[in-house]
């Protein structure tokens, strides 16, 4: 646990460092469908400029049985382009409504939102990312969660080739029974399509798909 904390802190403070690119190119649309150990998520966003994107965010948190629907704003606060690498620092926030269908909170609806940072650093061979968020949904949910990821590409392909990445994600959700969850995964990336699949240490299936157009 202590080592995980150190790794997460290290990733946070790495100066050149940013996740799966929540901002696209000017006029670009992105559909991100992600399913991890905690939730199923859909984010559809449009980027008017390369600095920010705005769009719908929907989440279903399986164990706690609550869902969120709202508008999410992603802002690229800083990008560092180098000849062989790119680093990004993003601010992410959303406002909307949460709906619970669990226990005493059955059918309760609350105003809700979240805010967090995301950062990544990648070359064509290596990838690191970190993101966190504070979630507030009244009586339904108040939580902090963070995740970090490292990855390596076993071979280097050019644009249009099938790119393969081997990755490890660490999720830290202090409120959950499984406070720390590890998910080894494989990422396939070709053109405007990105898919990720893995199985977590608590035996949940991770499946993510991103399409950018």
């Amino acid at each position: 646990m202590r080592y995980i904390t150190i790794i997460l802190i290290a990733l946070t403070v790495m100066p050149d460092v940013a996740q799966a690119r929540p901002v696209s190119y000017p006029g670009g649309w992105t559909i991100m469908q992600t399913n991890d150990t905690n939730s199923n998520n859909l984010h559809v966003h449009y980027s008017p400029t390369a600095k920010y994107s705005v769009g719908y965010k929907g989440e279903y948190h399986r164990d706690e049985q609550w869902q969120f629907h709202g508008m999410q704003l992603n802002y690229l606060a800083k990008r560092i382009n180098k000849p062989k690498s790119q680093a990004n620092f993003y601010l992410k926030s959303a406002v909307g409504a949460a709906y619970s269908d669990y226990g005493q909170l059955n059918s309760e609806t609350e105003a809700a939102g979240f805010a967090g940072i995301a950062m990544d650093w990648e070359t064509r061979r290596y990838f690191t990312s970190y993101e966190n968020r504070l979630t507030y949904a009244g009586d339904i949910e108040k939580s902090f969660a963070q995740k970090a990821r490292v990855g390596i590409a076993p071979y280097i392909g050019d644009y249009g080739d099938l790119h393969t990445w081997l990755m490890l994600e660490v999720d830290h959700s202090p409120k959950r029974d499984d406070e720390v969850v590890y998910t080894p995964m494989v990422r396939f990336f070709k053109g405007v399509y990105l898919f990720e699949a893995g199985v977590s240490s608590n035996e949940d299936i991770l499946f993510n798909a991103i399409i950018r157009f």
Partner: protein
Amino acid sequence: MKNLFIIFTFLIFVTSNSAYSDEKVAEGAVCKDEVVVSVNGLVCDFCARALEKTFGKKDEVSGVSVDLDNGQVVIALKDGQTMENSLITKLITDSGYNISSFDKGC
């Protein structure tokens, strides 16, 4: 020792800036029907797609190819068309990347 460090840092800063200036190409000069632009930050297919879409929308461009291995974008121009450096720089900067050099073949 402290002063030596400051002087050394200053020299590195001055040298790196002057090296960047040397890479700039005369504004508007187009010597053949394609421009090869070296771009910083080209690390994945999403990056390549961004620049392909951006330049593909321009009337004067007949084709765009991205070489991730060399971090280059090759912009093919239609017959008789030109594209100024300032416009290329703006399009790439607005897409979230930055240019390290141009090669217009002249």
